[in-house]
């Protein structure tokens, strides 16, 4: 007998036919206090990072200056990177760069989503569209997005438009390809069922094909966002006057390795943050796919 533990949203849990229904505590009944096993795991993770930082700090403060003062500059102690990060944060400078990069990423990524999802559905659904557009996609796709940087600088100059263009090139294909794949992986029997129930073509596309492709579309969106975040940095390194990529490139000119490292860490954190947010959204929208999950 299966016992469901998914008494959530006020929906009843599901007994199998004829089974005695057993009351299973849902989320609210779970103990709220400190989860020690979990805490220990997290602390364990922190400990290794702390050890690395300590080692690094000692290395760049005590060992490197004695070997060669230049090494000490090239590998700054983490505490100095942290302090300069704090200063940049307080002055508002850091936030300005974060916002500039985020704006470019979100703009490019959402515009691409609006184009690539319908296009992917069309390519996946109508073989004719695939025959026509497929070869073009296959020709452009293998070109690494950063190979577009030189021509895009000539086209758009330096700044927002060029950065957004590069991100769009990079985010486009993961979203497109995953959408196409999603459409093609819909179970044919669901299409049959929909036709049997009288679905006209347009509703079939919207109510069955789009939904059926949604899990893969989300995968594409997530990969696309990751790629976007990498590319915004690449684009800003060479063609921007703001943004995190610009910030670390600018710091290079002044040998401010503390800012460079601080910037690198923040770029990494922002990437993780965006991925996390998108996963949350996905979990909420695709309950029917993932099932109701209480633990991560």
């Amino acid at each position, binding site marked *: 007998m*299966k016992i*469901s533990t*998914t008494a959530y*949203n006020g*929906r*009843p849990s*599901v*007994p*199998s*036919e*004829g089974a005695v229904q057993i009351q299973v505590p849902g989320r609210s009944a779970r103990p709220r206090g400190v989860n020690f096993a979990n805490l220990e795991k997290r602390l364990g993770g922190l400990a290794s990072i702390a050890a690395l930082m300590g080692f690094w700090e000692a290395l760049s403060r005590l060992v490197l200056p004695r070997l060669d003062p230049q090494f000490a500059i090239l590998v700054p102690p983490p505490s100095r990177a942290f302090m300069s990060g704090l200063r940049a944060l307080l002055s508002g400078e850091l936030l300005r760069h974060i916002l500039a990069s985020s704006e470019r990423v979100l703009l490019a990524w959402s515009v691409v989503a609006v184009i690539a999802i319908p296009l992917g559905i069309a390519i996946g659904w109508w073989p004719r569209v695939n025959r026509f557009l497929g070869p073009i996609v296959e020709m452009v796709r293998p070109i690494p997005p950063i190979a577009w940087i030189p021509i895009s600088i000539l086209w758009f100059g330096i700044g927002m438009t060029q950065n957004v263009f590069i991100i769009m090139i990079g985010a486009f294909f993961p979203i497109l390809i995953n959408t196409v794949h999603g459409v093609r992986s819909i*179970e044919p*029997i*669901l299409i*049959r*069922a*929909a*036709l*049997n*129930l*009288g*679905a*006209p073509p347009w*509703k079939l596309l919207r*109510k*069955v094909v789009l*939904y*059926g492709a*949604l899990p893969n579309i989300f995968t594409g969106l997530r990969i696309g966002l990751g790629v976007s975040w990498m590319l915004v940095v690449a684009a800003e390194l060479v063609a921007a006057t703001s943004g995190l990529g610009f910030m670390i490139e600018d710091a290079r000119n002044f040998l401010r390795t503390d800012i460079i490292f601080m910037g690198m860490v923040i770029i990494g954190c922002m990437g993780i943050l965006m991925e996390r947010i998108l996963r949350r959204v996905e979990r909420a929208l695709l*309950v*029917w*796919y993932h*099932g*109701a999950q209480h633990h991560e």
Partner: protein
Amino acid sequence: MAFVVVSDLSKTFISKNQMVIAALANVSLEMERNQFLCIVGPSGGGKSTLLNIMAGFERPSQGKVLVGGHEVKGPSPSRAMVFQEFALFPWFTVRENVAFGLEMQSMSKPERDEVVSHYLDLVGLRRFANNFPIELSGGMKQRVAIARALAVNPEMLLMDEPFGGLDSHTRGFMQQELLRIWEKERKTVAFVTHSIDEAITLADTVAVIAGRPGTVRSFTKVSLPRPREEADPEFVKLKVEVRSQIQAASLSEEEWETDAGGVGRESRWRKFRLFAR
């Protein structure tokens, strides 16, 4: 004329490696309105193919299907299908699944809600209206599929081994549920199964389809009152009868296959005829 007329139906598939597969040959049968027909036979006998043609998913290679005097030309809600795999839309709740066909007809929301509630009550799943299919057991999923099929008010139900994927306990329960529902909402039902017991429990008439290609071997009327008891001597008698018909079919099949080169000659001839067409 009978409500459903299947006349001289044949179907050949061409497989990926260009083999000609004869799935059905010269199948004819008739169904009266509100009749419960069970189609039994070994797997690979073309039962699903027959149902898919009746549903309008596949075109026959020869012959035709008339329902209510009209030739079947494509899928239609008037011939609602219940699949062995349930085929519920996983992204819709139970309620939304049952409402799907009505929404396709652009029925207004209040009207739709009323019809959906009626059928959810009928299959006893009102409580689970807002659950997703992933949260239901197999038997419940199939009850949702039945409610979804009935909600569009079809002229007939086509059921392809609907209980084939369920455990035997749930299966017996679902058979009784189906009969209860059928007593309330009289429909013409074509029900495919490979279980003789199931066929005799449910049907007014049991048709045996067997062989490769599948042909109709016999019709057996079942006039026992429902609910039927498997231990009933009459039930057992019918069971023996139907089983012997299926066995006779597979025996003659074996003879045919062991007849040296018979199959080869036959299929080559079929291939030739196909090219000649």
